[in-house]
Each structure stands twice: as C-alpha cells, then as structure tokens.
C-alpha cells in the first residue's frame, strides 16, 4: 500500500537484539494525521518497532539498527541527527503511566522548561491548556501542586499524554497505552485519540483488535518481526488478504 504524504517512512529497517533478528526488513509508510495501529501477538516486535521511531533503543548495547526511518523526509538514524529534537517531535505513552517524580503542575511544565520556557504565566497557560486537552483540568485544577503519584492510574495516563503534548510534538506514539487501565479510562483515552488525530499523527501498538478497529484509520499486522499486511482498518480486519492475518483476526491464535 502506498501513502501519498507519509509522516514517518520506514525503509529496509532491520533490528538485531544480540544474535536475534527481531525486526526483519520493515518497510512501512505512516500516514500524516491519521491513527495507525500495529497489531500482532505478544513478542512479535510491534513495541520494538514503535521504539525505533524515537530511538529509544539507543541506550541498549545489544541492539543494532540498520536501515532508515525518515521523519518528514529526514533519516533519524543519520549520524548527524539530533536525537533530542527527534524525540521532542514525538510524545510517548507507555503501557503503564509513568509520571515524573514531581507535582502535577511540574509534570506538564517539565518539557517546556527543558526546552527553554521560563515565563511563569506562559507555563501556567501551557499547563492549563494541555490539562484541558486531556480532560483532566476539572479533576486536578485545585491540586496542581500535589504529587502526580497521588492520581488514579487512569488520570496518570491522561497526565502523561498531556505532558507529551506540552512539548508540541507532531506524533503521538502509544505503546499499548490502555493495557493497565479500567474500561472507563480506556474509553476516555480512545476518545482523546480520535480528537487528537485532527492535529497529530498517531501510532498505536495494541493487542486489542476491537480497539484497533475503534480508533485507527490504518492497521498493520506484525508477525514474527515482519509486517505481514498493512491497509485501511476495515479492509485489513474484515477482508484480510493474507492467510496469517485472517487466522489472527479470526482469533485462531493470539
């Protein structure tokens, strides 16, 4: 499948974990301002693939990456690529929410602060705006100075989303962001994704097929380190071309 204006373009990407060939010759174009989901069984490499997008494998000695990941046409694995500015363009939501060890306010203000924002009023505005964006503002506006760890886990995940948005990224990476949440919080996060895709490109790793169907425009089926099939959501989930995809979406294996 070809995408006219890809936001992220992965070209001949191979990733080795020690001797293990974890990602095998990945080629995929992630469309701009759409939700793209990676589905597949546990251990198939979908999270690993997601993390190559903001170079989170950099700190492991065993991981070797070959190939290109083009972000707006520029290879993020280029020798001269500035890793912090690449990461700034992508907000990450992990499986479990990980608020920074500081107050609710400071969690949101942290990103803007490290990128040079010092003005208190501006920071106040930023905090309010992004907490509103994730519908957390009414719940926390009276306790911005209290530790983020006191929030419920669903609130924490929305806080983490707001924290990511506060550095004004272009892309949101979600690594099974609802797997630790209760159904109600999950629904809230999914609704947020649907709103946010107006402004952001969203890449989601999920093992819940219904979730992929509810929120995504495109779905890629990853199996054993390879992209088996990639296409528009309905098409891939309802009329998959490959036998392997058929078996997976029908629930023959998971």
């Amino acid at each position, binding site marked *: 499948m070809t995408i006219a204006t890809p936001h992220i373009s992965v070209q001949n990407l191979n990733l080795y974990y020690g001797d293990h060939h974890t990602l095998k010759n990945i080629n995929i174009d992630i469309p701009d301002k759409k939700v793209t989901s990676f589905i597949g069984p546990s251990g198939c490499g979908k999270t690993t693939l997601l993390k190559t997008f*903001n170079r*989170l494998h950099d*700190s*492991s*000695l*065993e991981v070797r990456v070959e190939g290109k990941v083009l972000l707006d046409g520029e290879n993020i694995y280029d020798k001269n690529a500035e890793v*912090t*500015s690449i*990461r*700034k363009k*992508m*907000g*990450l939501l*992990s499986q*479990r929410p*990980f*608020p*920074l*060890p*500081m*107050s609710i306010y400071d969690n949101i203000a*942290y*990103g803007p602060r*490290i*990128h040079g924002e010092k003005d208190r009023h501006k920071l106040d505005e930023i905090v309010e705006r992004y907490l509103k964006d994730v519908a957390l503002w009414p719940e926390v506006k009276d306790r911005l100075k209290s*530790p*983020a*760890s006191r929030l419920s886990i669903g609130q924490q995940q929305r806080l*983490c989303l707001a*924290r*990511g948005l506060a*550095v004004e990224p272009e892309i949101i*990476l979600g690594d099974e962001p609802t797997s630790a949440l209760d159904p109600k919080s999950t629904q809230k996060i999914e609704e947020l994704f649907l709103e946010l895709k107006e402004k952001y490109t969203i890449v989601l790793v999920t093992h819940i097929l219904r979730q992929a169907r509810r929120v995504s425009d495109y779905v890629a089926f990853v199996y054993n380190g390879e992209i088996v099939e990639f296409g528009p959501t309905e098409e891939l989930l309802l009329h998959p071309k490959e036998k392997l995809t058929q078996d997976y979406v029908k629930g023959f294996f998971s």
Partner: protein
Amino acid sequence: MKWKKIEEQFFKALMILSTVVIVASFFLIVGTIVSKGLPSLSWEMLSEIPTGDFYMGGEGGILNSIVGSMYIAVGSSLLALLISLPVVIYINLYLKKSSWMGNLTRLGYDVLFGMPSIVYGAFGFTLMIYLGMKASLLGGIIAVTLLIIPIMVRTMDEVVRSVPKELFEASYSLGATRYETAFVLLKQVAPGIFTAILLAFGRGIGDVASVMFTAGFSNDLPQSLQDPASTLPLAVFNQLSSPVEEVQARAYGAALILTIVVLLISISARMMSKRLSKNKI
C-alpha cells in the same frame, strides 16, 4: 496436610527466633552501653578537652574526639558524595547497559567494598608519606573518604538500578538530554541517596583503623586541616586500654556519645527521606 502444617509452624518459629535474637541484641548492646556509660557521662566530658593525665584518671573530657569525629565524618561524607554521585549517574545514564566500563567500575567498587579498613589506613599513610604530609585532619578525611566511597557508590547504584527504565524513557521522549534526565532521576531516588550518605557517615564515624595512622592523635581541638585530630572510636580505644578503672568506665561514656550521634543522624535522615519521598512514583 498435617506435615505441611508442621513445616509451616517450624519455619515460622525459626523466623521468630531469629527476629528476637536481632531485636534482643540491639537492646542488649544499647542497654550495656547506656548502663555502663551513663554514670560517667557528664557535662565536663562533653565540653572539655583532656588534661595531660586524663588517661590515668585525670581531669577533662573528650571534646577533642567529638569534634574530630564530626569533622572527619562530615568532611569525608561530603567529599565522598561529590565523587560518588557523578560516578553513579555516569555508569547508569551515560554508559550503555552492561558496557565493559560499567562492569569494570562495578567490579572495582565491589572489591573495594570488601577491603578491610586498615588497608585504607595503610594506603592513606603511604600516600601521605609520599606527599610529605603529617598525620592530620586532612589525612584522616582522605582515608575515610576512600573507605566510604565504595559504600556510597554501591548503595546508590543499587537504588538507581531499581528505577524502572520507563522513567528514563518518559524523560527522554520529551526531548530531555541525559544531563536533564539525571535531575529527574535524583528526585526519584533522593531517599535512597540519603540512606547511602547515612550508611557511609555511620561507617566513617565509627572506623578506627583508617584514621589511626592518618589522623594521628591530639588532646587539642584541631585548628586547621593540617592539625592532627582524635576521633571518638580512638577515644574509646585509648580509654579502654587504660589500667585505671575509672578511665575504663569513661570509655563507655564515649561509646554512648558515639551511639547517640549515629542514632540522631539516623533518625533525622529517616525523617528527611520521608519528606523527600512524597513525589516518588
């Protein structure tokens, strides 16, 4: 079914016994020191330096040792912290996981950790002779610093390594540099850092062998880093070796002071670390 129950009861009893042994020995030690030390504890002992025949039963106190111990323990703890903190941040944030440099560092301080303190004393002594230094406060601080760095680095490293990698990823994915991430890390592990300082301080204030040759001994208060200084453990040692019974009794007074100092530091550090951990995730 019955056997399982016996097994459960047996091992539970064993564990209770061990716990009782620990708690009992704590109270036994503290009890002995308090009961033997309290009678000889006086304001004079805390506020005066020893007179010439102090160790033969003369007048005076052990202010010189109290001050010397505090100087050495505080000085070396600060110095060790200044060295340990960058090491821990470097091997955890800047080096890749299981890099040879990190492994070598960890092997290094593990070996140093198990080294008897007399070795540090001897090394410090050699170093001082080489540098032409006399036994002094500075010499003592350096020897004790060498002794407690491995304790600090090791304890902090344990704490930092137990931090989930998602915390780093969270900070990195906001575009933070490793240096900026280090501050987030420090907020998270602040209570652990405090514990590490406390452990090192406790070891530093109580050690005799490392300061015996390096800090020397003096009945006077040290006026500068070049002056020799006495320490509390040394005061205990010197008084216990006296043939005079009254002086031997005073040794327990000195031991009591040492215990109280460590206890106070320990309690205040605990309170401090509780306050620091309010933001911890």
